[in-house]
């Protein structure tokens, strides 16, 4: 990021992106629909299940495939676990950006438990490629649900620890309160979404407003912030961890038996000329997949609406007028994932 300074105060900030560009959208044009799934993991690699979910739901919309109930519930559990993992990482890196190195270790220790759960279910920790078009790859192993239950039971104590160590710390509050204030109208104009928007007080969560999958069956709240400063963005994400845990508990109770894969043809050929744009509430914001089909078993065009890329466009507006030390706090609080910014 190029910063133009006036003594210690910033006049302009220009993010320079593209250093992690891997050409995933172009690569997807040469792969079949199932082969693209491992590539979607690698965009927002911190919350891989959510990327998978968005993509497979887009393809299912394109080809008109039904997903069985059990697969839907498993998908919700994995997606919310992924959201918890991403927010835990945000807590850790934000604490480290502000200076508390120990605040980096404790959320990572808890994120390890989520990654262990992913390993148990899919074999990989971060780039899971667990979901398939029409369902999920494999059923849950037996030790998954008890381990998940134990993790959810331990989660409130962990969150108390983060609140005690980081959120309640006066030094941290002095660094982040009233820093990087975001006006809700400005946020809407820039197309911001996700926890950044919700921290400014705008009630916009796709899981509530345009429910996809089976999210309309769950009862959860959407935490909102008041001021739109860094502290609010931090607290909103911690509260979202709690709400995700609530969703997982309900999904665990309602989990039915049944097949985990729907009726999918051997070779998937969506109708020619069909196009679809499907959005889900990703961990960083609204994650959208735009797919165009030309009748073959490969997508003709895939475009990803990456929330981090769009949220990053706001940095110039938010950072102007603050000091250099605040830039780090503000940039950290937007929570970008560079894999997503560059794809």
């Amino acid at each position, binding site marked *: 990021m190029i910063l133009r300074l006036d003594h210690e105060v910033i006049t302009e900030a220009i993010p320079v992106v593209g250093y992690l560009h891997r050409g995933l959208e172009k690569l997807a044009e040469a*792969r079949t629909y*199932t*082969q*693209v*799934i*491992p*590539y979607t993991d690698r965009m927002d690699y911190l919350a891989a299940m959510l990327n998978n979910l968005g993509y497979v739901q887009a393809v299912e919309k394109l080809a008109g495939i039904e997903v069985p109930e059990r697969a839907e519930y498993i998908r919700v559990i994995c997606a919310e676990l992924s959201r918890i993992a991403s927010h835990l990482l945000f807590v850790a890196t934000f604490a480290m950006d502000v200076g508390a190195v*120990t605040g980096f270790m*404790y959320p990572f*220790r808890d994120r*390890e438990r989520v990654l*262990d759960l992913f*390993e*148990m*279910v*899919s*074999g*990989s920790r971060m*780039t899971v*490629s667990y979901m398939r078009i029409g369902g999920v*790859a*494999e059923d849950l*192993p037996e030790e998954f649900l008890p381990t998940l239950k134990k993790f959810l039971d331990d989660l409130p104590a962990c969150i108390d*620890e983060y609140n*005690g*160590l*980081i959120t*309640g*710390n*006066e*030094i941290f*509050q*002095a660094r982040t309160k009233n820093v990087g204030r975001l006006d809700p109208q400005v946020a809407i104009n820039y197309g911001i979404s996700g926890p950044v928007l919700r921290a400014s007080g705008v009630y916009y969560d796709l899981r509530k407003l345009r429910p996809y999958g089976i999210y309309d069956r769950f009862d959860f709240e959407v935490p909102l912030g008041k001021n739109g400063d860094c502290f609010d963005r931090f607290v909103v994400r911690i509260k979202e961890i709690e709400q995700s845990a609530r969703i997982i508990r309900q999904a665990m109770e309602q989990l039915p038996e049944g097949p985990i894969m729907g009726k999918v043809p051997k070779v998937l050929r969506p109708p020619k000329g069909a196009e679809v744009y499907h959005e889900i509430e990703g961990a960083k914001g609204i994650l959208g997949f735009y797919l165009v089909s030309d009748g073959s078993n490969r997508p003709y065009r895939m475009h990803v609406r990456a929330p981090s890329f769009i949220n990053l466009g706001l940095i110039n507006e938010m950072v102007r007028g603050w000091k250099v030390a605040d830039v780090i706090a503000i940039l950290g609080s937007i929570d970008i994932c560079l894999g997503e910014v560059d794809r």
Partner: protein
Amino acid sequence: MFGQGLLKGLQITWREFFNKKVTILYPEQRPPLPPRFHGSFRLDVEKCIACGICAGACPNRVIKMDSVRVGKKRQLTSYVMYMQYCLFCGLCVESCNQEALHFTQDFELAKYTREDLALVLAKAPAVAEAAAAGQGEGEGA
């Protein structure tokens, strides 16, 4: 800056000081791996019918396999996986109908040279020669 927040932070770090450590002393202790772990690969050569579905399923064209027709069946002559391109996604293992390709729990896959990275799972040139000699007009290989 007089406040409970600072003291609470100190309390938490004091407590964590005496807690059990979460790291393990590798390489003396190994991490416990689940059965589905995506490690290295293992091929059951007897079960493999050399259909080539795994090579087609791979997003990165990691698998290179050769086969030769012996009578009615196809036999595998060479099966190499170029691990520098592998995503460890598991699409190949999932696509195998005969359940010949499996994951192992081996994660220490670092090598010293680029040539060593090619994981040779089956190499049977004798089969190819026998097929070519036995058939007269050899096919493939």
